[in-house]
């Protein structure tokens, strides 16, 4: 009787929440891998197994390597500034400044706004002739690129928007980590005559390293999944210069309906993400202090 009760209890507490999780997460994950070995085109009801053909096609296409490079560039160039700016903002905001809450709210507010809306605003800011960005650059006699229509600058324009949106979010995590550093540690280093910079290097950086690891992993996963800003601002162009792996996947699946190839690419993206998380976890053992 009590055994039956236990089973019923588990079915209730685990079984019910597992249904949507299984239907829209676990099951699609496996189906996606299975589809990657077929040539399904979404429209026809039948399909053939094609072995690893989708993978070889993908891994030998120039589009894939261009997208891979774009993704790597985009990820590295958004993660590093987001983390550095986030930490700087948190350091600036420390110890009960007057107006702290207001500053924090201002700095964090970009994170609240929809990326689609903000990408439209930034498209206007980047407008080559009358946009704010180039007018301001003009005051300082700096070069005024065409931003979104120039294949050299388009990805940087998207990187700037992404960092702008996420820096305040990283700041909150660092603020929390900093508030947990015991005051004595500061005082000791102060007595030892450490300068501000030295103190950051020897006290702050090691103690916030778990936060840095966490932010690096989450930002990397977010960077791999970036879509909204690319869709609104450049649609992957000009000439594929802002097409990331995920955007390429979207185009294959939902513009060209090559489901086999698209799911093969999805599997590759998943493998990359897993490798990245694993590498970060193991690398972290060397420099993260818990």
């Amino acid at each position, binding site marked *: 009787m009590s055994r039956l009760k236990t089973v019923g209890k588990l079915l209730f507490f685990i079984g019910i929440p597992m249904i949507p999780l299984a239907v829209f997460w676990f099951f699609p994950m496996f189906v996606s891998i299975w589809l990657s070995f077929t040539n399904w085109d979404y429209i026809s009801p039948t399909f053939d197994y094609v072995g690893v053909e989708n993978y070889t096609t993908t891994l030998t296409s120039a589009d894939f390597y261009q997208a891979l490079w774009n993704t790597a560039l985009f990820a590295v160039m958004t993660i590093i500034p987001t983390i550095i700016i986030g930490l700087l903002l948190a350091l600036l905001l420390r110890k009960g400044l007057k107006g702290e809450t207001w500053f924090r709210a201002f700095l964090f507010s970009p994170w609240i*706004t929809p990326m689609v809306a903000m990408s439209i605003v930034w498209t206007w800011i980047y407008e080559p002739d009358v946009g704010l960005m180039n007018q301001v650059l003009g005051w300082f006699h700096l070069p005024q690129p065409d931003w979104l229509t120039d294949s050299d600058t388009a990805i940087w324009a998207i990187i700037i928007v992404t960092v702008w949106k996420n820096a305040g979010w990283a700041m909150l995590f660092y603020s929390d980590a900093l508030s947990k550093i015991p005051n004595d540690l500061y005082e000791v280093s102060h007595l030892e005559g450490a300068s501000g910079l030295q103190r950051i290097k020897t006290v702050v950086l090691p103690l916030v390293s778990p936060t840095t690891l966490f932010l690096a992993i989450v930002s990397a996963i977010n960077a791999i999944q970036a879509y909204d800003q690319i869709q609104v601002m450049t649609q992957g162009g000009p000439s594929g210069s802002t097409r990331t792996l995920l955007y390429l996947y979207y185009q294959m699946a939902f513009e060209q309906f090559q489901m086999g190839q698209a799911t093969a690419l999805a599997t590759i*993206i998943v493998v990359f993400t897993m490798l990245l998380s694993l590498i970060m976890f193991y690398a972290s053992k060397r420099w993260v202090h818990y």
Partner: protein
Amino acid sequence: MDQATKHSIPRYIVLIVLSMMMIFPLIWMLLSSLKTGEEIFAIPLKWLPDTPQWGNFPGALELAPFGLYIYNSTVTALVIVVFQVVLACMMAYALTQLQFKGKNVLFNSILMTYMLPVAATYVPSYVIVAKLGLLDTLAGIIISNIASVFCIFMIRQAFMQVPKEMVEAARADGANDVAILWKVMIPMSKSSIFTVALISFVQMYNNYLWPSLIVKSQENYLVTVGLNQFFTAQGTFSSQWPMIMAANVLAVLPLLLLFIVLQKWFIKGISDNGLKG
């Protein structure tokens, strides 16, 4: 002026400059939405409109039903969040309070899911939504989003901090599991749960890629989908920029108001419950 305040003047200046830079795109959006077509294209830059063109707002609403879009997004996000939180509370309860075989496997597979790009599931999920006959409906968006690994994690984190003695005391009083969840765990973690719900709401309101695949007809557009459609349709006519900015303001405003009112909860929540790597 005392020594400490003097000392922090450079800090204030840097903070003010940085805060201005962060909110400037929002201010620029608002200013642009109040300009005439000529003012917005003025060279050199015209910071302020001569007379604020409030008419741009009704103008944008005439071109596309943004009220309806905002309503769709709000309702969809609310319903999703209610489901997400209830289901996550149940799962978090099992993960923290029940003993069973395979608990670690279950937890690790959920953890893995959190690391994976959700987009990788989109092709099969799309087919599932189609098979359920829910393409081009808000129900399709809702049902495919009610599982939230993020909520499960955050609520599990909160439940782990509930003192064991309280659970044991309730159990000694003869409370069953549903009662413990409802009367002990949830009340003890309500501020965390509220924050999780808030963050999830913002994410669902701002969600774009997946909803844009599911909904096709205008009456079902979420605000992000409607906004980008509007932008694509009007963007070719450069004189429409003030209208586009007005539409943007309308889309962002509900969230900004929510943030202004509940600011403390967002910030406190993210820093108190932040998932630690």
